[in-house]
């Protein structure tokens, strides 16, 4: 089986400061990888380099492109890379305001991605958008409302619908449940697990919440000061942590 994503030697520096250093891993189809670590550990920098939002200083991110095979995303032209991120990839931002267009309706937010891949029939786009709103548990009747009238949890679900409508194979998520209260978080986790299973999605999820990765991720990488200090099967790393930092992280979780 060909890995969907092959990352090697990925490094991003900001002048003398390190964002992330020498990160390498493979992600296979259908796998969910969690990236954990405290604030400032480089997880978001890494995610932005992986998802073509930020050019790395060195290293490669090879994606198994349809018809082309593994291709370094930074060797693609700007339009090719933009097309990839709009069709075969999804990017769910921590703040829905970065991932949604707040000045157009919920339906238009979903329809826009479909139009980017060539859909032109208004009726079909609207039907598809309604279908996706229902799938992410937003009433179809809210289709013409602006996202600004939605709650935080609804905005996050709309962002997910907007990303999944084109049937991507790989989704990047930055703290998808951050800032939501726990009952809303649970609903979102349940939804994401179901979608990953039904669509056979691969995902890279950045979070500082160990409970979230335990429920969503097959494998995790633990980051500290820009480097991956420990990686492996999720329950193995969390139940039998080897690195001093991971042990500290796991033992610092508050029990409810």
């Amino acid at each position, binding site marked *: 089986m060909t890995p969907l994503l092959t990352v090697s030697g990925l490094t991003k520096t900001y002048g003398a400061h390190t964002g992330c250093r020498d990160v390498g891993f493979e992600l*296979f189809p259908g*796998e969910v990888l969690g990236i954990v670590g405290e604030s400032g550990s480089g997880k978001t920098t890494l995610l932005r380099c992986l998802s073509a939002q930020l050019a790395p200083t060195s290293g490669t991110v090879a994606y198994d492109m349809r018809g082309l095979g593994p291709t370094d995303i930074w060797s693609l032209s700007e339009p090719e890379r933009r097309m990839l991120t709009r069709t075969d990839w999804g990017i769910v931002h921590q703040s829905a305001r970065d991932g949604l267009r707040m000045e157009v309706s919920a339906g238009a937010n979903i329809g826009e991605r479909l139009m980017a891949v060539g859909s032109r029939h208004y009726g079909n786009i609207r039907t598809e958008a309604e279908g996706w709103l229902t799938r992410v548990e937003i009433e179809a009747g809210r289709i013409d409302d602006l996202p600004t009238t939605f709650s935080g949890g609804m905005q996050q679900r709309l962002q997910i619908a907007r990303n999944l409508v084109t049937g991507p194979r790989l989704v990047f998520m930055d703290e998808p449940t951050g800032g939501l209260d726990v*009952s809303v978080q*649970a*609903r979102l*986790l*349940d939804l994401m*697990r179901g979608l990953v*299973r039904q669509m056979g999605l691969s995902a890279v999820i950045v979070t500082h919440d160990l409970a979230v990765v*335990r*429920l969503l991720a*097959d*494998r995790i990488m633990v980051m500290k000061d820009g480097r991956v200090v420990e990686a*492996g*099967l999720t*329950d*193995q790393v969390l*139940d*039998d942590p*080897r*690195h*001093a930092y991971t*042990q*500290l992280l796991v*033992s610092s979780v508050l029990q409810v």
Partner: protein
Amino acid sequence: MIVVENVSKSFTLHNQGGIVLPVMAGASLVVTAGQCVGLAGASGAGKSTLMRMIWGNYRTDSGHILVGGTDMACAEPRQIIALRRTTLGHVSQFLRVVPRVPALDVVAEPLLTQGIAPVEARARAAALLTRLNIPERLWSLSPTTFSGGEQQRVNIARGFVHPWPALLLDEPTASLDAANREVVLTLIEEAKARGAAILGIFHDEAARARVCDHLVDVAQFAVAA
């Protein structure tokens, strides 16, 4: 089906002065198809540690743990995930679930991840919940609100919903009443009859005597601290 060969394990506690605690050395056992082997030994002897190494959530320092031909001691995460999906089942002592997911779906989930149609998966889950005396009115509720015994039965249903060829049971009868204990023991006997290799921890001596073909005392593998 399950072969443990000369396995050792120690824990290093970096945040407590880097103490190294060797806990196990030279652990070996074999469970063949259709057999149930019980792990015996006092609390703290390493029964759960050994079982976790076989399940793969504890790492193995040296030796081999073969489950259906895959060596858990050095397998890649995706090999372990694939093995757990189809070959190796596990009933832990505690149920860990996504809040809000109905009990019926919690039980059906292992089948859904194998790509079995939701209707069939739920029907099989329902049959097991019925056998384990979980009233139908609870099926649509999240087990997070259930009593300890009910949660344990949901956990057991999840562990028996697919005919895993290898099965790990961590005190499956611990918090059950007599009637439900009987159901669980019958489920274990049925699994053995279809050829499952079962490794279990049973504190309940009568249960142990009834289902286990032989016992392995883990105290012999313990490393004196």
